[in-house]
């Protein structure tokens, strides 16, 4: 029974992966694989259900933190209260995310808070740079620092022959070296992504046991 219990999800995922892959491969030839579109649509439905699971998990985690009086439990209380207010607003207004109150909450609370938080990134970037300067680095660390320095100084628009040289260096670094390096990395990532995707679809449950 346990063996069947393990085999069924493996078979379902194998067949689904094959149908979806084959569906995309033969679509341009005008051939429609049965269930291909339905399976893709089911993904959307399952994502919706998963959001509910996520919400239950969120409530469970924060409720437990309040009950156990964990560190900064008050934030959990604020989170749950906010969650309840937003859901209640949407239900009372009856227009879902298109409702005026929900839009107001989004535009005047969430967006400004997010923008404020994102502005902190510059501080963290500065800390990163200082951390690199303070600590001994391998040779590639110094190349990284030198590149950052050249790009920063070159964007200051220094006049004269020094400015022109810096600008040429910046253009060469950004247009030749950086583009080449990024292309190389993206090729590696694409290969890794392809093999990982195939392993997950045809040989193994994501994060689980081998099907082979």
């Amino acid at each position, binding site marked *: 029974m346990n063996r069947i219990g393990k085999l069924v999800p493996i078979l379902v995922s194998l067949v689904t992966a094959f149908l979806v892959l084959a569906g*995309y*491969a*033969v*679509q*341009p030839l005008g051939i429609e694989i049965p269930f291909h579109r339905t399976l893709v649509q089911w*993904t959307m439905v*399952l*994502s919706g259900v*998963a*959001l*509910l*699971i*996520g*919400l239950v*998990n*969120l409530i*469970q*985690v924060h409720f437990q933190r309040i009950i156990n009086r964990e*560190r*900064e439990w008050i*934030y959990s209380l604020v989170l749950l209260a906010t969650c309840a207010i937003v859901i209640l607003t949407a239900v009372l207004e009856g227009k879902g995310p298109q409702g005026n109150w929900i839009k107001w909450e989004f535009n005047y609370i969430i967006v400004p808070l*997010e923008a404020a*938080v*994102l502005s*902190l*990134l510059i501080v*963290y*970037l500065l*800390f*990163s*740079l*200082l*951390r*690199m300067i303070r*600590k001994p680095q391998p040779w590639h660390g110094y190349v*990284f620092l030198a590149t950052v320095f050249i790009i920063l100084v070159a964007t200051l628009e220094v006049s004269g022959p020094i400015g022109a040289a810096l600008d040429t260096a910046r253009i060469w670094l950004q247009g030749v070296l950086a583009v080449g390096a*990024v292309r*190389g*990395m993206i*090729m*590696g*990532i694409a*290969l*890794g*992504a*392809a*093999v*990982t*995707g*195939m*392993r*997950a679809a*045809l*040989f*193994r449950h*994501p*994060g*689980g046991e*081998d099907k*082979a």
Partner: protein
Amino acid sequence: MTSMIGSLVILVFVLLLIYYYRTTRVTDVERNREITSLSQVKVLVDSAIEEGQRIHISLGYAKLGQNQSAGTLAALDALRAIAKRSCDRGVPPLVTVADPVLVPMVQDIIRESLVRAGYSSAYHSTQVEFIAPNPTQYAIGALQRIDPESIYATVVIGTIDERLLFLVQPGTAPVSSISGSDHPVGMASSYAATSYSLIGEDIFAASAYLHPDRLSLAGLKTQDAVRIGIAFLIVVLAIMNMIGVSIY
């Protein structure tokens, strides 16, 4: 035409993967180059257990079923390896996710690792936390969960951009961190902010290094074989272009 070439490439990948799966041995991992950051992950996990603390693992903000699913799949593979090492001594990691689809998957990985190690009573569904689907809200929310009293280190693996800086907090972080991303900006941020970072395709090699099995190693060999093929093709095409032969 493009889809047919795509199908052909997929077929080559699958055939190579099967070939290497059949010919690879787990001991082949010793032949791989050393990735210091991945060795350091093992050290961090072991040190955390000695200190009686947990590891926080962030799987980035990408969602399954979208363009960057592969980064998340690689992160899940790495998580499986870290969770196994950590749960073997009855200390499950704390995992934060931005995609609710991942919640039951990660719960399953942790539960299974604990059951196998004989610590089934140590499992609790709240060892996985869904923070928020929005990248910024996720990063800030996950940061709040890094309590230095109970968390020894943070490991970030997956798709994440400059928001990674919130999680690793360069210069001010109360806990150690190792990070890796398949996002170009995330990679640069990771390199600048942490002493140990996973660059480029390193995150896709994580499972083969952390908990080597035949399939993960076969995946690595497939990547290398295709990479050599592509490099050869680029050189041949460049030479052909230089001598005036164009196949476009």
